[in-house]
């Protein structure tokens, strides 16, 4: 479970995230939506321990990311909005590097690398250096590295950007499979129709403040998620 409790993050005088609180339960696919600059990436980076935050706390399975960063991070995998990797590495070396950091046993990583590289059609390309990849291939390499260590919580920032339609479909399948196992998927997105179909819960952030949070059914009612989002934006 992820518990976000009254989190505030400031950049100088500017408040990027303003007293945000919500909870993500085990088995949730949680969509985090908001316009550009609303504070999505800042909050995501705070959850995964990249950013410190000024007030509040974030608990991962009951443990504070501030107090126990290493233990919390062991439960999570993070996929950034830009596929940031060590470009001079071969993809397989990069994936192995990430697995080493999570101390993933050989049998688990072997099985997962095989499984996900097959799904993303990357089996023949893992021995290439990442700098020879396209944006989409880099994104796939990052996704394989995130999934290879079998995380309990998958946190993604705009994961569908730059991916081909088949890869988008495959990710949706993988995410559904994960939540069936009681895992958590938390991701930010601008693609509202995908979020509407895929996610069980949603939070909407506007100018750093949480304006809506709850189950997808509660939030959208009879309307489309896009319509709800646009109405909130116009307020």
């Amino acid at each position, binding site marked *: 479970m992820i518990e976000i409790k009254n989190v505030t993050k400031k*950049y*100088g005088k500017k408040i990027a995230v303003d007293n945000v609180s919500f909870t993500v339960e085990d088995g949730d696919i949680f969509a985090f939506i908001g316009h550009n600059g609303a504070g999505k990436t800042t909050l995501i*980076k705070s959850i*995964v*321990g*990249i*950013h*410190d935050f000024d007030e509040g706390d974030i608990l991962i399975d009951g443990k504070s990311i501030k107090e126990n*960063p*290493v*233990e*919390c*991070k*062991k439960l*999570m995998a*993070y996929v*950034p909005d*830009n596929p*940031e*990797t*060590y470009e*001079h*590495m071969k993809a*397989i*070396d990069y994936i*192995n*590097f*990430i*697995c*080493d*950091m*999570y*101390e*993933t*046993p*050989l049998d688990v*990583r*072997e099985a997962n*690398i095989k499984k996900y590289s097959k799904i993303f059609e990357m*089996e*023949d*390309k*893992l*021995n*290439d*250096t990442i*700098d*020879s990849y396209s944006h989409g291939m880099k994104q796939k390499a990052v996704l394989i590295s995130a999934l290879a260590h079998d995380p309990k919580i998958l946190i993604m920032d705009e994961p569908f950007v730059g991916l081909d339609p088949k890869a988008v479909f495959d990710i949706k399948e993988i995410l559904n499979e994960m939540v069936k196992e009681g895992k958590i998927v938390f991701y930010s997105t601008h693609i509202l129709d995908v979020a509407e179909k895929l996610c069980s819960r949603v939070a909407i952030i506007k100018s750093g403040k949480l304006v809506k949070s709850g189950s997808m059914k509660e939030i959208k009612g009879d309307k489309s998620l896009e319509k709800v989002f646009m109405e909130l934006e116009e307020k």
Partner: protein
Amino acid sequence: MKKLMSLIKACMTSDMNLFKVSSKKKGKSSIILPIILAIYLMGYIGGISFILFKELDVDGNAYVLLSVFAFIITFLTFIEGIYKTSSLIFNAKDDDLLLSLPIKRSTVIFIRIFKFYIFELLYNSVFLLPVIIAYIPFNKGSLVLYIVISLIMLLMLPIIPIALSSIIGVITTAISSRFKYKNIVEIVFTFILLACVFMASMSGSKVMEYLLNNASRFNDLIVKYYYPAGVFGKLVNNFNIIDLLIFIGINLVVYLLTILLISKVYFKINTRVKSSTKKSSNKNTIIKVRSPRSSLIKKELNTFFNTPVFIINSGFGLILFLLLVVVMIFKPDLFLLVLTKNNPNSGLTSDEMMKHISLIILLIMSFTSFMTSITNSVISLEGRNINILKSLPIKAKTILMSKIYACMIITTPVFIVGLIALLIKFKVDIIEFILLLIIAIVMPLISHLIGILVNLKYPKLDAENSAEVVKQSTSSLVAVFTGMGIMFFTVFLLIMFMIIGFNTKIVLLGFTVVFILVDLILYLILNKWGTKKFSSLEA
């Protein structure tokens, strides 16, 4: 012109601010240390040059030294250029943006070289401005004219060495880009070039001797062999507007020709550099399990060996060490002669120095190890990838120490091998042997710890290319100047102990203890302040 100015402004503000550091919490304290170091260095250079001017002024030849300094600055700019131009001109992060704009390729080249020029201008000013000021009391002619000439020289001097090194950088890249292993070819080429320049400069002490004996003819010699440097002394001593115009003309023509020449081949070479020639290997995918620490060290080594400018920059100190070891083994007399000539006031002869051979060996090690600062860019080189490290379930201390271990893996074997060769050659006493071996580990460690602490203080996570981080960031300048300061102090102490005739074993033991204590203090700072600073870095 408006378009060009707009481009220069955009490019300069994004990446050429010398004191730009990536911490969002940057304050005034960030720039205090570089300023203090620059003032210290300028004061030191000004003081030394004043003494030299005074000595040469007895025969009315002080002006010659201006040409000598101009020549040295030119030479240093050329060396810097060989290191950097290839990385600065090709495969920059803003390539796609600039090449997609409706501007000429020559404009792109102009911007790339102009950025390098501005940096060198700042760098040269630290060395040349104090010299120019120190000469004022010895200036015989009009002060206003002298200042105008000096400022023109300051502005023009970097142009030709930058142009020449840019052309060399383009040729090196053009050749290396045809090979599968571009990086290795580029590194080998650069080392060969630098070795040639180093060999040529070995006769430096002879040149200084000639200068002191034949100062007035020396300026004619510089004018003859390198007019743009020699003309400085000539103009100050005997102003002639034609000489000044020729000097300005030569610089401008060389600059424009270089830009035109490079822009003709730039696009083709850059495309080749960007297109990877590495083909998929058909080997089975190897999945190995390593501990987090060894995996992090492997990643660091991978970064090191895949960043040519990083290897060239830090590797040169190690190669210099090995070169000095070879000279000591095969031509010990030559080495000691250079040492005694450069320290004429020490009163030590070559024979007396041989009695303190262990201290001479320590002197070589301190000279090269404090000049070899690998870690001053290891944080900045992470760039936005710092977010990957920060999201991993690994303590900041483990990440930082793995960077130190990787640097130790690179430097320690070189120092140990060179040291053992020297110890065997000079049949050093076993206790001194053991103490020197310990020093070979703990002394470079100081350099590594200082480097990483300085880089944590002055990170640059948004650089356009690795050369900018390795060669022209605040962190690299501060770390190099700090290393130089420690090196000068250590060398001074060693020479003092030799003159006094202190017991070599006690001196070595003293240095070992002090180095270990400094390592411990720096380690504690890294463990406490460094880890906090790492966690607060934002890309």
